[in-house]
Each structure stands twice: as structure tokens, then as C-alpha cells.
């Protein structure tokens, strides 16, 4: 995709494969995108489409074996994160690029006090001493809206509710004022009213701290409200990429069109939902050519060959043979 000067992160042709049982699963198969400074990029897709693996690959958090980043580059601050030595990427993880995960229950250490987990980060990355780190931790907990932070800092994660734990995760991620925050399904495990709280919080803090955000989600509603650009992933590839408003008002790829039509709108009464036929593909046994073609109503013989991603208009890209 178009190279932009103000890009904080450029991912080029990223490929992450998993090996096992004699089969190769191409979980991420040639993903490219740019994230502009201060923007929020949404990545949507169904389970197994490779959205989480893409973002774990950015920080080289893929367990080897079975997984391996086999190609591509991730340019952050003029350096290719795929090539720098391990100790250098450790200084970036958690400090300049931070991540929050879907499940706040399993991503906090149950044996450590919340405060100790928060202090660890600033002590490691910013060299604060104990009392400074503790002060900073309390400050961060207050920032994410945890009442009575100076007392709660000595609690364990099981003493917090799901929404509160996600707030702690966000406090932790933002402790070092990262330039990039990767949020992987941050509200999927939460109730509707708590989801609204967390999304408001991320939006507010993004403005306050000026962090760029990659938001991974399967919920098109969240993408609509939170992001500037959106990439749609299917079978390890970005099949469509556009400014969010453009994507919703003028989708090009049949998969995007199908997804948008298959979500009921809570504000309007609908008669029958559109459904995409068939099942998401088995990544170890992909069809020839376009992986969506077996489920696509517009598929032609041309789809036997994989469609390259091409420009539809100014900032709109799609990997489909269809005319505009």
C-alpha cells in the first residue's frame, strides 16, 4: 500500500506460518499496511483470519516452534523490527509498543499484587525506584478510573471484576506512554455496559496521550465508532483496506459486503438477514486462488488465480477481480 511519510508503523508483506502434523498453516500470508501517527487502525476478521497473529508478529511474540515469521518487514522508527536483536526488541515491547489482550483474567499474574505488576514496567523501562514507581502506578490506576487507587494497588487480580481488570491492563500498557497501542479484542470478554466504559476510556486516553492504536476486533460496530482506517482480513490476508467511512459506505470486496449485510442493525428493524454461505476456510487446506471464492456469489473462473490487492480509489484497496 502507498508509502506514507507520517507512518509510525509500516508492515510489508508479513508472513507467519505454523508447522505441525506435516502441514503448513499460513496464518499470516503477505499482510501489508501503514499506520499513521495518531490514528486508529481497525483490523476486522473472523476467528482464524490471522488478525491476532499479525499483531503478535509485529512484536515477535510468536512461539517458535510451532510458529515462525518467515518473511516481510515491520518498519517502526526506521528500523525493521524483524531484524533487530532480541535485547533491542525487548526495550520496545511494553515501552514504545504496548499491547492489551482479550482476556484480562489470564493476562494478569494471579500471584502478584496489581501494584507490583504495574511497577515492574516503569522500573524496567524507565529506571524508577520503588517509591517513584509506586507513585506512578497509583497515578495510572487513577487515570483509568479505579476508585481508591492507593488502597487497591495492594490487591490481587482476583479481587477485581472483569472490567476493572481490563482497566488495570490498560493502565499497565499506557504506563510508559507508548507510541503505539495494540488492543486485541479488548472488550470481547466484557458485558455491554462495561464494553462501553472501556471503549470510552481508550478513546479518551488516546487523545490525552497521543498514542496511535491498532484495534483488533470482530465487531463491525466497534470498528465504526473507533477507527480512522480499517483492514478486513480473510484467510491470512488483508482483502480490503480503506478509510472506515469509505469502507462502510462503499465496500468493494464481496466478503466485506457480506459481513456488513449480515450484522443486524439495532436501530432498524430488518426482515431477513443476509448470510454468507459456507464456512471460514481451513488454513491448512486452502482453495486455489482467491480463498473466499467458494463462498462468493460473484466468483468467476478468473478467481482460480489469486487477485492481487489493487487500488480502487485514493485510499481504498481491495483484493478482488471485480470491476469497481
Amino acid at each position, binding site marked *: 500500500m502507498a508509502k506514507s511519510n507520517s507512518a509510525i508503523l509500516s508492515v510489508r508483506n508479513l508472513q507467519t506460518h505454523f508447522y505441525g502434523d506435516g502441514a503448513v498453516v499460513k496464518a499470516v500470508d503477505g499482510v501489508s499496511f501503514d499506520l499513521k501517527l495518531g490514528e486508529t487502525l481497525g483490523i476486522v476478521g473472523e476467528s482464524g483470519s490471522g488478525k491476532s497473529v499479525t499483531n503478535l508478529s509485529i512484536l515477535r511474540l510468536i512461539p517458535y516452534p510451532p510458529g515462525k515469521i518467515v518473511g516481510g518487514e515491520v518498519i517502526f522508527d526506521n528500523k525493521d523490527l524483524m531484524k533487530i536483536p532480541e535485547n533491542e526488541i525487548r526495550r520496545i515491547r511494553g515501552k514504545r509498543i504496548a499491547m492489551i489482550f482479550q482476556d484480562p483474567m489470564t493476562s494478569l499474574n494471579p500471584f502478584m499484587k496489581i501494584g507490583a505488576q504495574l511497577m515492574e514496567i516503569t522500573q524496567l523501562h524507565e529506571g524508577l525506584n520503588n517509591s517513584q514507581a509506586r507513585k506512578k502506578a497509583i497515578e495510572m490506576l487513577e487515570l483509568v478510573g479505579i476508585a481508591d487507587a492507593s488502597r487497591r494497588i495492594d490487591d490481587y487480580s482476583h479481587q477485581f*471484576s472483569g472490567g476493572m481488570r481490563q482497566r488495570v491492563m490498560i493502565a499497565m500498557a499506557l504506563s510508559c506512554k507508548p507510541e503505539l497501542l495494540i488492543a486485541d479484542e479488548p472488550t470481547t470478554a466484557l*458485558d455491554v*455496559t462495561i464494553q462501553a466504559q472501556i471503549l470510552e476510556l481508550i478513546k479518551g486516553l488516546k487523545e490525552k496521550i497521543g498514542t496511535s492504536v491498532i484495534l483488533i476486533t470482530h*465487531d463491525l460496530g466497534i470498528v*465504526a465508532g473507533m477507527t480512522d482506517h480499517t483492514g478486513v482480513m480473510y484467510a491470512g490476508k488483508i482483502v480490503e483496506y480503506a478509510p472506515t467511512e469509505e469502507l462502510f*459506505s462503499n465496500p468493494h470486496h464481496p466478503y466485506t459486503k457480506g459481513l456488513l449485510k449480515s450484522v443486524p*442493525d439495532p436501530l432498524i428493524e430488518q426482515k431477513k438477514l443476509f448470510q454468507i454461505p459456507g464456512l*471460514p476456510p481451513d488454513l491448512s487446506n486452502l482453495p486455489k486462488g482467491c480463498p473466499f471464492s467458494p463462498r462468493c456469489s460473484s466468483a468467476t473462473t478468473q478467481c482460480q488465480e489469486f487477485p492481487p490487492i489493487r487500488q480502487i480509489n485514493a485510499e481504498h484497496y481491495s483484493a478482488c477481480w471485480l470491476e469497481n
Partner: protein
Amino acid sequence: MCLPSFLCVIKIMSTDKTLLEVNNLQVHFHLSGGGLIDRLMGSKPRIVKAVDGVSFDIKKGETLGLVGESGCGKSTTGRAILQLIKPTSGEVLFQGTNLAKLPDREMRPFRRHLQMIFQNPYASLNPRMTIGDIISEPLTVFKSLAKQQLDKQVQELIERVGLNPQFIKRYPHEFSGGQRQRIGIARALALNPDFIVADEPIAALDVSIQAQVMNLLQDLQKDFSLTYLFISHDLRAVRHMSNRVAVMYLGKLVELADANEIYQNPLHPYTQALISAVPVPDPKVEKQRQHIVLQGDVPSPLNPPLGCHFHTRCPQVMDQCKTNEPKFVNIGKNHFVACFLTNK
């Protein structure tokens, strides 16, 4: 003579229309702390009032949506209706029979009329049974069919839910989540039930598969004249599926009305917040919407707030809400609300 018989016909028709009636249903769970030592120490047993006085009716052929956040008691309500959990008190009238009072033996013949579809298609199918066995089990329990007839019915069911009948000898692990949910639906349909409790049937599925399962449930409802209790936390799915919607909070219903009415004109502050919290899949609309963001978490059901359970998070709380409990009343057009703002 003519007039009374005419009235009589009307009465039969209208009672005919209500398939299931739930009156003041309560399900309480006793937690640990009721042992001998605790009693000697004088501590009171701790009780979770998971369902605390819920009343509604479901008309034949309709879908009643039941929404609420985790822990509000919506699944417990569904299970208590099917007597999978014995209610502590209250009535569950199915075509006039109070299921809550029936001993297990007498409940059994009713079970074929009341079925359930579960949330987790991975945990609700026995991994050591083939899908043919899973779907035929209800038939062998309730009907004595010849082998050939049984196979034919199972094949028809598998086809009806959109699976290939050649899969009959396969095991659940060979299927995807959406396909497993179809197997669960086929099992629920096997005995041609009248009423199905669908407990979060799409929560574990991908977006494109959710639409498939919702459409399947709607098609089956038409073909088999089914009545659904559709339990979900997904307000988009609930609106799409339901004729009427009931909203639950901490064991109690707070609002119940026609689906269109409740989404266009929500009266309870909790319903208003829930609907406003649902992201709309349209960036132009979404960026202009004012979200009501509730403060705080749902209180523990072990120790619910006095008065109106919602008062601790309610943006429009008044003094009386902290001490008095609002009644669940019909304010017209069969729109029920439990709130002092509407029930003055």
C-alpha cells in the same frame, strides 16, 4: 345462549394463545456457610437470589427475547422454566400445567415438548457419540421406532438443519462451531417440540456464522410453528430475532415490551443505557451518537442494593429509589416497566 358460547370461544382462543406463563418465579441458591459450625457461630446462610420474582408470558409462535448482562439470571430463568433447576417458588404454567409442582416422574412426558439449545456447542455435545447417535437419542428415549424409521428421521433432521446426511457417523470434533450448533439444533428438534429455550445460541460463533444460525432458527420457527425464549446479551441479535423483549437486571425484570417499542422508546434507564451502549455498524451514525456510559460494575447478586437494584448505577436516581422497590407494571400497550420515573 348464543352470547355466552361466543364469549367462551373467545376465551379459549385467547388462553390458547399463551403457551407458557411464568408467575413470580424465584430461584435461590444457598452458598456455603450454612454448615453446623457456621450455624453454631450464628452466621446466616448466604443466599444468591439469581431469579427473584420474574413474571411473563410467551404466546404461541412468538419469540420472547431475554437480555441482560452476565450474572443477571437470564440463563437460570431459562433453565428453571425447563425444570433443569427446580424453582424455589413461583409457577411455570405450560399449557395450563404448573411444571414447578410436578414430581420428576410426571415431568418426563413434558420434556419432549420443551427443549433447549445451549450456548457452547463444544461442551453440549458428547464427544464420544456420533452425531447420528446424538440426534437419535431423544427419539429412542421417547419413541420406539424401527431402526429404518429412526435412521430416516435422523437423516431428515440433519438435512433440515443444513448438514450433509453423510456426516451421520462422524464425531463432534470433526465439525466447526457453527456446524456443531446445527447438530444441537437438530437434537432439540428431534421430538418436534412446542417450545425451545435458546440460551445464547450464537454467542460462541463467528459473525458470518451467526447470521446463518439466526436465519436457520427463524426458518425452523415458521416450518415447525415453534415458540422461542431467546436468551442473549447481544442486543442486535435480540432485536432481530424477537417479537417482544424482556430486560433483566440482578434477578428481576426491569422492562418488557414489543421489540420495536422497546428499542425506539426504552423507558427504564437501564434499558436506555444498554441500547445506547450497542455500537451501530455505521461510522456516520456511530460518530454522532451520544452514548450513555453507566458508571461502575453490576453489584454482587449476593448482596444486591436495597430499593431498586439499579439505583447504584442509575443516572436518574431519586431518593425513593434507594429505599423503595418500584413495581413491575403495565403502563399501556403492554409495555411493562419497573421504575419510579414512569410509575408515579
